[in-house]
């Protein structure tokens, strides 16, 4: 009997605290649900074995498997427990808060991750002008407290850091020197608008890194056993995906992926690039959109978290809303299978959200080109085949009540999957 593969395909795997789901997708054919053992939990071994078996049975050569870890990550944040790491939060602003309510994160789930908070005088404005020199004596006290406390995880967020990350870097360098091996996340790694949102994202990322690394190690080991030679990717909250190594370092980018994957999967199953998707949720139906094949995203809140983040996630609204004159689908194959289809068909993406001061159309062109180039490089780092990453969304909006020429630039880039890049070595920052 000829068992050689007749076609190529991809798979999406959803790992949640309550179990796993998977689907195989081959162009031009209906997706194939992968039946998984009921007691498989969130162990990728069983899922990958089942995916490999289905692919073999369907005579499909698997090229890429994209895994959605967001349920496991968010569950760790919302329900606490040992899988998150106690994190020191350092805020760099000109003055410490005079009200304890402003000192904390408004989100209890984020605050639970913070073992100690410090404020160091410093910071820049939106355009990168220094507002206050970094207080090196305060920084020294912070380093000493981190060392004495035996803390190993630290998130730092400074006012104005997307425009000028100098103070965040100075804090990170000083802490690293005082406490070698301390795992540090800086808010400027994510960019975006709003110090509270950036700080919350940095705290989540730092606290989730050890769990993300463990999960990624588990995926690699399981894939080596069951899916040798298959490229592995992790689903992003914006409906795209990224390399395992990047997911291990930037788990915050994976948060919220399941909603985005369900929207994407619904569009794929409907065979349409522009539609509204109705999602059934325990608290009631919500709707999201897919436009030009991309999930409509915003930086905002994840359900249950209680604070804004700077990583983009699916823009969902409660139903009912008016007839919007667009195709509308309500996935009828089950949310998990639909999300797996979305993951299987996802592509590498990147997103930047920045503020710049421009004084002429030529300057705007220069700034826009520079932002596009960086976003393109990020998409390539996330797994896009070199030369395929391209801008799919670009907006330049004047920032209200700001000096003339202050603009907000948002750019979204998508590339083609670089399956030739496998196997992928996992890098470690520390």
């Amino acid at each position, binding site marked *: 009997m000829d068992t050689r593969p007749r076609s190529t395909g991809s798979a999406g795997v959803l790992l949640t605290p309550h179990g796993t789901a998977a689907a195989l997708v081959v162009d031009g054919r209906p997706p194939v649900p992968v039946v998984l053992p009921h007691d498989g939990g969130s162990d990728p071994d069983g899922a990958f074995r089942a995916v490999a078996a289905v692919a073999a049975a369907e005579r499909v050569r698997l090229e890429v498997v994209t895994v959605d870890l967001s349920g496991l990550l968010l569950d760790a944040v919302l329900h606490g427990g040992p899988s998150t790491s106690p994190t020191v939060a350092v805020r760099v602003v000109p*003055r410490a808060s005079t009200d304890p309510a402003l000192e904390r994160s408004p989100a209890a789930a984020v605050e639970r991750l913070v073992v100690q908070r410090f404020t160091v005088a410093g910071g820049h404005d939106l355009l990168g002008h220094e507002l206050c020199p970094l207080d090196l004596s305060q920084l020294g006290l912070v380093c000493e407290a981190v060392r004495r406390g035996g803390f190993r995880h630290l998130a730092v967020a400074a006012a104005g850091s997307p425009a000028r990350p100098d103070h965040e870097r100075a804090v990170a360098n000083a802490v690293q020197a005082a406490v070698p091996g301390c795992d540090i996340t800086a808010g400027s790694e994510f960019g975006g608008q709003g110090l509270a949102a950036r700080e919350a994202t940095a705290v989540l990322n730092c606290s989730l890194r050890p769990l993300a690394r463990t999960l990624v190690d588990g995926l690699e080991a399981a894939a080596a056993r069951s899916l040798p030679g298959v490229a592995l990717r992790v689903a992003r909250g914006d409906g795209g995906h990224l390399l395992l190594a990047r997911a291990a370092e930037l788990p915050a980018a994976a948060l919220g992926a399941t909603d985005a994957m369900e929207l994407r999967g619904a569009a794929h199953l409907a065979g349409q690039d522009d539609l509204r998707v109705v999602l059934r949720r325990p608290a009631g139906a919500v709707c999201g959109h897919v436009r030009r094949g991309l999930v409509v995203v915003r930086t905002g809140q994840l359900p249950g978290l209680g604070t804004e983040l700077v990583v983009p996630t699916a823009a969902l609204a409660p139903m009912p809303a008016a007839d919007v004159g667009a195709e509308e689908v309500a996935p009828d194959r089950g949310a998990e299978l639909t999300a797996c289809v979305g993951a299987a068909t996802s592509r590498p993406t990147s997103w930047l959200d920045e503020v710049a001061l421009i004084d002429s159309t030529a300057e705007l062109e220069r700034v826009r080109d520079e932002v596009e180039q960086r976003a393109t490089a990020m998409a390539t780092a996330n797994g896009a085949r070199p030369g395929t990453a391209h801008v799919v969304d670009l907006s330049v909006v004047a920032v209200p009540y700001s000096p*003339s020429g202050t603009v907000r630039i948002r750019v979204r880039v998508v590339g083609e999957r670089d399956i030739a890049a496998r196997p992928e070595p996992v890098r470690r920052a520390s």
Partner: protein
Amino acid sequence: MRAARAPAPGRDGSDAVQTIRAEDVTALYEGAKFYSPAVGDANRTWLTSWTSQLLDRNGPVVLAPPDALPPATTAISLCIIGSGFALADLPPAGDEFALAVERVARLQRVRFEAVYPLAAATVSAFAPVVAASQLGVPLVDADGMGRTYALIHHTSMHLAGVSPTPLVVQGPTGESVLVEVLTAPRADRVLRANVDTLGGWAALAAYPTTVGTLRRAALPGTMSRLLEVGRVLLAGGDADGLEQRLALVTGCRRIGRGRITGLEHLSRPTDVTIPTHPSSVVVDELSGRQRQLRLELRSEVVAVLADGELVAAAPDVVNLVDVSRGELATLDSLEPGDLVDVLVSPAGALWYSPEALAMVGPHSHGITLEHPGRR
């Protein structure tokens, strides 16, 4: 064509003393967005969380109409001057608003017995609520704009001859600036460079006066109306129902429904008197006359042209409703392809006088067309 007459504020009983409690804060935020859609949601959670905790800790803030307070009551207005984006990236330490009031009080050797909003809209609507809570004084249910305008002398108080100075801006850096000028329009020019240096935003305390003066010089009932609009917005539902309920409170009407087909920026030279670059949003109407609606933006929407005809302009309040989400669309969230309703609401009647139109009407934004209400 002119926007419909605005229902009189206070139609829900706001001529009586009310309170603003922690549970009202989300309505405050939503209502503030209606009167200034320029504000985004980047700092929504911490701003509402902080204000709620203040009101929980200190008790509700008394919201009193000017007629409910003795005329000799000393009062000062508050707002956030500068950019909401800057505020989101550089949050207040928490004492900026109270310090700004105290610095004017020290200069004038008075104790301010009440505060009021300079502009009951955008994040500025939170400034007097926070200050009233921290200082333990009532909040006057009246403001100087009934929406937002770009410059601090664009107020009913200025039109009534009340000076904005002495004024103080207190920045998040801990620094402050006292401004005294010979003429009100100079104040904004003097302030702008200082605000940029303070970090892009600052707490502003200005227009020190008495409640007796506010009875004739301020727009009454605007805070209670803002809260009522916020409650309507929070009730949700589809866009059609939402707009019908909003119309009962604000007098708004829909100009058209369509898809955003273009966002244009930097299409014209910078106007040096008004912050931010001119930009435009193009909406193609889906039904009816299928007009092309062009929204001219400065910091707010200042004009709407339908197939080239001016159909709404400042001081009208122009909003966009995201039809698919059944909620207000903030100006920083717009994307091509969005289905939106364009709403226009009338500003207070005061703003349609020749003197006020010269100050805040379309000509002040470089649009050389007559306001639709004057043709």
